[in-house]
């Protein structure tokens, strides 16, 4: 500290001694990490969009995502993914409440809200596991739908077959579009799911530290805030994934 303050005084630029951004080094670096992660996710989603724009047909989300656990063949488009979105928003609220409790040094509050957040994260991951399994049963996986001579009946369930603009080019382009769609779907939701899973691990570590009183001894709960930033970012990415894959 003393060194940087001296150096700053010599160059007469910035007084030093305190953060010009009024945030600690760790929190600022978490923000910059999240910024770089935003570019990774952004690159994924934009390349998904590019592929979609150069495809003559594209699977219809209302036909791809219409199942719900234990509801058999009932046609419930978007309902399950809405539930997943709700779970993630809810866990974001419990996370920000944990951060809030941390600001006030309220250890019990931090522990309670962190537990709820971890449960929310695990629920979300379970939902995603169910969704992936369900799609896999329909024949979808990385590298599926590569055989352009396979009968169209295998992919018709993913398209809006009432629209002549879809049924026209389906024979020529449907297989490639389905293949692209699922490669992107599993890669992007998988990358997001990996973020959620690492988030749950980080939250568990923070929870153990909170229970052990590590942050009370340290004098502040900033670690909860930093992991909180990461957790909210994961929720933020889901907002965009939800729009790109399920709505647009």
């Amino acid at each position: 500290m003393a060194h940087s303050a001296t150096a700053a005084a010599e160059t007469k630029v910035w007084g030093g001694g305190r953060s010009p951004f009024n945030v600690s080094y760790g929190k600022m670096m978490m923000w910059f990490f999240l910024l770089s992660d935003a570019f990774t996710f952004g690159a994924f989603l934009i390349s998904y969009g590019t592929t979609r724009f150069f495809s003559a047909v594209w699977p219809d989300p209302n036909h791809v995502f219409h199942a719900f656990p234990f509801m058999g063949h009932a046609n419930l488009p978007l309902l399950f993914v809405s539930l997943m979105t709700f779970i993630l928003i809810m866990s974001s609220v419990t996370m920000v409440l944990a951060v809030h409790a941390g600001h006030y040094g309220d250890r019990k509050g931090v522990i309670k809200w962190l537990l709820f957040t971890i449960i929310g994260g695990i629920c979300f991951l379970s939902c995603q596991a169910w969704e992936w399994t369900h799609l896999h049963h329909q024949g979808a996986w990385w590298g599926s739908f590569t055989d352009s001579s396979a009968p169209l009946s295998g992919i018709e369930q993913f398209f809006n077959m009432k629209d002549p603009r879809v049924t026209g080019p389906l024979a020529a382009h449907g297989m490639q579009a389905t293949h692209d769609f699922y490669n992107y779907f599993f890669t992007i939701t998988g990358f997001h799911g990996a973020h959620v899973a690492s988030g749950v691990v980080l939250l568990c570590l923070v929870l153990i530290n909170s229970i052990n009183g590590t942050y009370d001894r340290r004098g502040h709960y900033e670690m909860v805030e930093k992991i909180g930033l990461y957790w909210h970012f994961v929720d933020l990415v889901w907002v965009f994934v939800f729009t790109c894959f399920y709505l647009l």
Partner: protein
Amino acid sequence: MSQHHHTENNIQHLYEGDQSKLYSGVMQHHTDISSAESRKQVGRIWKVFWILLAVTIVEVILGMFFSYSIPKGFLNSMFLLLTLFKAGYIVSVFMHLGDEVKSFLITVLIPLTLFIWFIIAFLADGGFWLHMNSTAPMR
């Protein structure tokens, strides 16, 4: 923010780990979780939750019932606007970016404006490829 309690001279003696103390709020003497100030903040968090929930429900209703009746271009612009609206609330309230100093806010947000160019350039390229593929003479 914690200037009232610490002179510049005091701060010089803090080591890196202690620096976090300065900015983590504990030195502002936030101690009473059930104080009016704390409850006001919690109320704000729940208000944002209800906004996010309501926007998501609107999106799902639009997607479920209107995806074939409303013109696709208009519907997609609605989805994108609502998405940015939600993102704004998450970043400014849940991630507290709205409470940070302005220079930090700008530092984080300026690189993201590159996305405007990325999206326009790449989607236009994708659209052009489709146009070329569907208009090029068969070889």
